[in-house]
Each structure stands twice: as structure tokens, then as C-alpha cells.
């Protein structure tokens, strides 16, 4: 190349062009295999080193579990929005007593319990515990400080969502204030618009009242507008205030308004029930659920018992008791069976029962192959509700053959139930006997899809036995919700 051609050589392109798309094109296969083997060997070595270190650490801890170790103090770092008095209230019951024997084991338990309670307070995004030598100048060599480095969660949150459940869809907005006064109190405002529950407003304030955070006090005000025109030609507005600590005292202002699109449509019973009513009541709920999944359990059981006594003031006066029970078992891998039994009794005390307090049954999540709230006493086209009911169901759920990991399952069911008013001229036993001996029964098959946490069913079923006046749904029926019979 001539010195005078330097600029040309700088900018000229000489063929053939070097192919740099895959630098390993010409690399020998054996070299690739060797590289891969070496990487696998290094990963295996790192993993075994890690396991070895863990085993050594656990051996050290196990050998020294009863070595004396004393907790001098507990420090929570970076908890600016949480009151120190609240943290003391939470942590003090979890610290070993001063006079009790303390060792490494009790210290580790204390670390675990305190970390757990801090996480359960829902104030912290991260809790990282550590042990440090005590800073106190008068401390002994066995004294340590438990230090928890925390990252607090944001105080304010706003969420919009669309949810589907129990046969309806709604769009909602939730505003949430966490740790209102620095003691894990929460203030939430909820507003929703839905297909059946047209409007919902709720404001609630919750605060823990025991240091284990198992018991909370709630104070809430709510308003709900429900459209009952599908089964009762009316709509219902409920406004109330609720205070609860497991058992709760509720005061409700409820209004029942008839929907009058034509003078002939609404039955007289619903018209007579229209107007404003009030209720004050005390209720208690017991719930135990051991199922492995709340909507598609394959083992375990759940039981729920609900009592309500109304008549402390207002128009409603009754005693209501209701129970729901579910049992799930796996027969063979891929096939499970679920048994359900529910019943309820509404016993009026000094006044006849009111429409909003009565039971309603029927629908794709209740007694299948019947329309929503389609069973029980009627007046013309409107379901009036009842005071005594029972429901029983058995469902078999199976994986689709050769596709056990699919979320779609095959479903077969047999349901039965009845809804009646209580005949005061007969005894309770006579009322129960009459209700049990005239069941409405349905059966069908279909498909089931888990859209966690909602369960969606597409069934083909038929009513086998029904009462005259029951509104039936023959053929295809779709249901979605959180609780099914």
C-alpha cells in the first residue's frame, strides 16, 4: 500500500467481509462441550459449598443451642410512621421474661416470633433481623441486642378493580390509609358499581385490640343499593353502621322500594313490604376451614355457624340461625367428591319477618338447575323468601383424562333443597319434617374452571323434582362465584 493511498485504505471496503454474526461458527464442537461441562461443574461446586456452609452453620447452632444468651434490648430501625408505644405493645409479650432462663434457642424463637408479628401488622414491606453485641456499657458478654431493619409500606393506596363473584360483576374503587395513628390502624373507603348490587359505599376503620393481632375492632358505615327485579320486582337500599369485635352489634337503616314499571307487575306482598325499616341486632359467627382450597377443595372440611338476634330496637325482631358445612375427599388420584349441607331458621319474635331478612335459595351457586332465588313462597312472579330452608349437594370433580394439570375439570352434581315459611300453628319439629319430605332435586354434568379465586361452572342439568311455582332452569346454566353448593 502506498503512503499516498492512506485515506483510500481507511474508507475502502475490501471483500470478502468478515462474518461476525456468530463468533462461535468455526469453534470445534468438542470445545463447546468442554465449556458447558466446566460451567456445570462450577455451578455444582458452588451449590455444594453453599449446602456445606448451611450444614456447618446449623451444626454450630445445634451444638450451642443451650449456650447462655440474653436479650438486652430490641431495636426496630426505620419505623418512622409506627408509634414506639405500639411496637412495645406488640413485642413485649414475645420477649422472654427477665428471670426466665435464656439461651440461643429462646433468642432464635424470639427473633422468629417478633419478625412474624411485625409482618402480620401489615406495616412493613421487609423485616430483616440481626443479632448485635449489646451497646450497653454495663452489659455482660452474653448480652445481645435484637435489631430489626425494616422498610415501611406506603401509607396511602388507591386501587381500582373489576371483580366477579357470586353471580355478579362489579367495578370498584378502594382508597386505603394504613397505619393511621401509628398503631396498625386502617381506614378504608370502598365504592363499587355492579350488575346486581348496583351501588356499594363503605367506610371502615379497624384497629387491633390484642398484641397477637388475632382480634380486631372494626367500625364501619355502609350503604348498599341492590336490584332484586330479577326475582322480586323491587330494589333495596341498606344503610347502616356496624361495630364488630368477632361478635358485632349492628344498626341498620333499610329501605325497600318497589320497582314499578307497570301497575300489574309487582305483587301485593312486595308492595306491602315496601318502605323504610330499621334493625338493631347482635350476631356471632364461628368459622373453621381446613380444606386445601376454599372453592375447589380435595380434602378437608369447613363449617360455619351464624346466629343473629334482632329486636334490640327497630322494626325487625327475630332470632336467626344458619349453618354451612362442606366436606371434600379424594377417592382416587384425579377424582374427588364434595359433600355440602346447609340450613337456616328464621324465628320471628314479636313481629312478622321482613323481606330483607328472609332466606332465598336457588341459582347456579346454590340449588343448580333453578333460577336465582327461584324457590320458596311466591306471590305471582315475585319470590317472597322463606324462614326455613335446607340444602344438600354432592359433587364429583375429575381431571380431564390425560390432562391433569389443566385448570378445567369435569363436574357432576346432585342437589336438593327446599325453602318454606314457618307455620306457627305447628311445632318446629313438624315444620322441619314437612320441609324435609318435599325437596326440590336437580342433577347435571358440566365443566368447571378455576379462575382463582373465582370458580366458573358451565353445567347441563335438569330439575328432577320441583314444587309448583319453582322457577326452573332446564339445560345450560353458567355460574361463577366463591361459594358453591
Amino acid at each position: 500500500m502506498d503512503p499516498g493511498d492512506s485515506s483510500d485504505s481507511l474508507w475502502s471496503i475490501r471483500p470478502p467481509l468478515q462474518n461476525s454474526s456468530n463468533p462461535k461458527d468455526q469453534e470445534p464442537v468438542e470445545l463447546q462441550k468442554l465449556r458447558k461441562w466446566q460451567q456445570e461443574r462450577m455451578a455444582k461446586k458452588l451449590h455444594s459449598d453453599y449446602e456445606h456452609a448451611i450444614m456447618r452453620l446449623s451444626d454450630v447452632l445445634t451444638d450451642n443451642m443451650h449456650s447462655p444468651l440474653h436479650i438486652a434490648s430490641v431495636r426496630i430501625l426505620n419505623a418512622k410512621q409506627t408509634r414506639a408505644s405500639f411496637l412495645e405493645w406488640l413485642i413485649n409479650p414475645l420477649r422472654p421474661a427477665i428471670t426466665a432462663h435464656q439461651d440461643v434457642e429462646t433468642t432464635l424463637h424470639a427473633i422468629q416470633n417478633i419478625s412474624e408479628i411485625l409482618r402480620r401488622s401489615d406495616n412493613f414491606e421487609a423485616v430483616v433481623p440481626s443479632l448485635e453485641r449489646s451497646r450497653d456499657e454495663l452489659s455482660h458478654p452474653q448480652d445481645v441486642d435484637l435489631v430489626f431493619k425494616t422498610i415501611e409500606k406506603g401509607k396511602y393506596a388507591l386501587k381500582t378493580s373489576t371483580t366477579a363473584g357470586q353471580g355478579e360483576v362489579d367495578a370498584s374503587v378502594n382508597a386505603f390509609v394504613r397505619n393511621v395513628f401509628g398503631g396498625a390502624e386502617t381506614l378504608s373507603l370502598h365504592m363499587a358499581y355492579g350488575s346486581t348490587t348496583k351501588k356499594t359505599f363503605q367506610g371502615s376503620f379497624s384497629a387491633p385490640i390484642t398484641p397477637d393481632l388475632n382480634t380486631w375492632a372494626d367500625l364501619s358505615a355502609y350503604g348498599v343499593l341492590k336490584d332484586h327485579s330479577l326475582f322480586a320486582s323491587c330494589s333495596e337500599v341498606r344503610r347502616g353502621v356496624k361495630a364488630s369485635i368477632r361478635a358485632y352489634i349492628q344498626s341498620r337503616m333499610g329501605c325497600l322500594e318497589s320497582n314499578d314499571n307497570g301497575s300489574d307487575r309487582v305483587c301485593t306482598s312486595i308492595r306491602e313490604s315496601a318502605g323504610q325499616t330499621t334493625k338493631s341486632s347482635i350476631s356471632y359467627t364461628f368459622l373453621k376451614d381446613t380444606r386445601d382450597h376454599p372453592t375447589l377443595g380435595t380434602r378437608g372440611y369447613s363449617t360455619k355457624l351464624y346466629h343473629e338476634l334482632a329486636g334490640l330496637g327497630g322494626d325487625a325482631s327475630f332470632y336467626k340461625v344458619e349453618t354451612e358445612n362442606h366436606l371434600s375427599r379424594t377417592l382416587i388420584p384425579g377424582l374427588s367428591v364434595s359433600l355440602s349441607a346447609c340450613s337456616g331458621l328464621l324465628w320471628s319474635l314479636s313481629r312478622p319477618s321482613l323481606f330483607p331478612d328472609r332466606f332465598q335459595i336457588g341459582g347456579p351457586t346454590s340449588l343448580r338447575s333453578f333460577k336465582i332465588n327461584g324457590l320458596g313462597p311466591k306471590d305471582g312472579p315475585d319470590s317472597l323468601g322463606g324462614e326455613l330452608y335446607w340444602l344438600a349437594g354432592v359433587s364429583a370433580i375429575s381431571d380431564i383424562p390425560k390432562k391433569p394439570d389443566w385448570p378445567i375439570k369435569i363436574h357432576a352434581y346432585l342437589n336438593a333443597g327446599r325453602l318454606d315459611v314457618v307455620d306457627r300453628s305447628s311445632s318446629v319439629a313438624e315444620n322441619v319434617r314437612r320441609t324435609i319430605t318435599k325437596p326440590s332435586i336437580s342433577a347435571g354434568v358440566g365443566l368447571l374452571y378455576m379462575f382463582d379465586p373465582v370458580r366458573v361452572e358451565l353445567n347441563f342439568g335438569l330439575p328432577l323434582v320441583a314444587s309448583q311455582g319453582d322457577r326452573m332452569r332446564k339445560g345450560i346454566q353458567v355460574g361463577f362465584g366463591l361459594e358453591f353448593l
Partner: protein
Amino acid sequence: MQVPLGFQRIFSSFPLHSWPSAPESRKPPTEPTLWIHPSNHVDGLSGDVDCLKWQAYLALRGLKNIRVRTDVHPQGAIDHRLPNLHVEGDRLLPPHGIPAWVDEKLGKQKWEGYISEAAQDESRAWVSLLQGHVHAALIFAKHPPSLKETLLEMLSPFPSFTPPTANLQSTVVPMTGFLSLLPPIGIRVDAESINTEYAQAIQALSDRLSTDKWFLGSE
């Protein structure tokens, strides 16, 4: 989408067995019952102008054994307005359906019971005056809702249960205007002109009735 014929045949066989209907706890009334607004008095007369008018109508037409009921909320009435008449066959009649039911019960009376066609025509003119000026004044004279009730009704996101006629009672000045953030509510009515027309109508009726024992000579 129609169900295929084959499925319809299968569906028609179900349910395989039927029980009688679940018994109702409510029994339809045996006598005609007039649903009215309640009153503070024990004489059974309603405190509402419209309800009292129809009570008087039924009495003047000579109907007996009509019961009254005051425990039904206006929200349960047809068009949310009382009175309603609950008759045999579990039928519920709105106010404008009451005259036809009465005619059905009593049969067509000549001149509606008046002594002559002229008396019938004159009475209709007076009735129209009563239903105009006098009726408006009587409704207007009822106690209007308080400012607190008006504001609560305006701010509540749920439907109110105020009877439709309450809108006419708004003598409370709404706090609205061009510079106000609150939407306009209620209806502004001229109280003075209503009262003046009422006084003139009553005076004219009083002069016409004079010493007649029954309304315009009806039997």
C-alpha cells in the same frame, strides 16, 4: 336462540314429580281495602288531601264496608302515590281506576246521582276548580321538609324515599344560584298567588253552596 325440538321434548318430561306450591303466609283481604296515608286523628280520615278526597268520594257514592289501611308505605303504591284500592281478585287499583270500579259495583247511575244533567255539569266545573286551586293550596300548606332533610337528600348517593308531592312543598329557599356549587333543587312556587286563588275559590264555592244541604242538589 331457540331450544332444538329434540331438547324441548326431553325438557317437557321434567320435572319428573311436582309438589304443591309452597304455602303463602299472606291471605288476600275479603273486603275492598283503601290504602291511605295515616292521620293523627282517630276518626279514620286520612291526613293527606288526595286520600281524604277519595275517601269522601267512596262515601258520597254510597259504598259501605270499605276498610282502610294506613300501614303501607307510598313506595309500595302504584306510581308511588296513595291512595290505592285493593279489591277482590287481589287486584290493586290506582286512584284513577277507582271510579270505574265503583261504577262496576253500583251499576251506571243516571247523571251520577245528580238530580239533573245541568247539576252534573255544574258540579264537574266546581270539582275542577277544587282540584286546581284548592288542592294546590292544601298541598302547599303541609309542613315542608327541613333544610337538613333537603341537603341530606341532595347529598345521598342512594334514591330518596320522599313522596313525589314533597317537591312541591319546598318553601325552603335552596342555596343555589349562579355562583353556587350546589345543583338547583326543588321547585319555586309563588305562595301569595296560590293563597289568593285559594281564597277566591273558597269564597265562590261558599257563595254558590249557600244553604244547600247536599252538594248542588244531588240526592
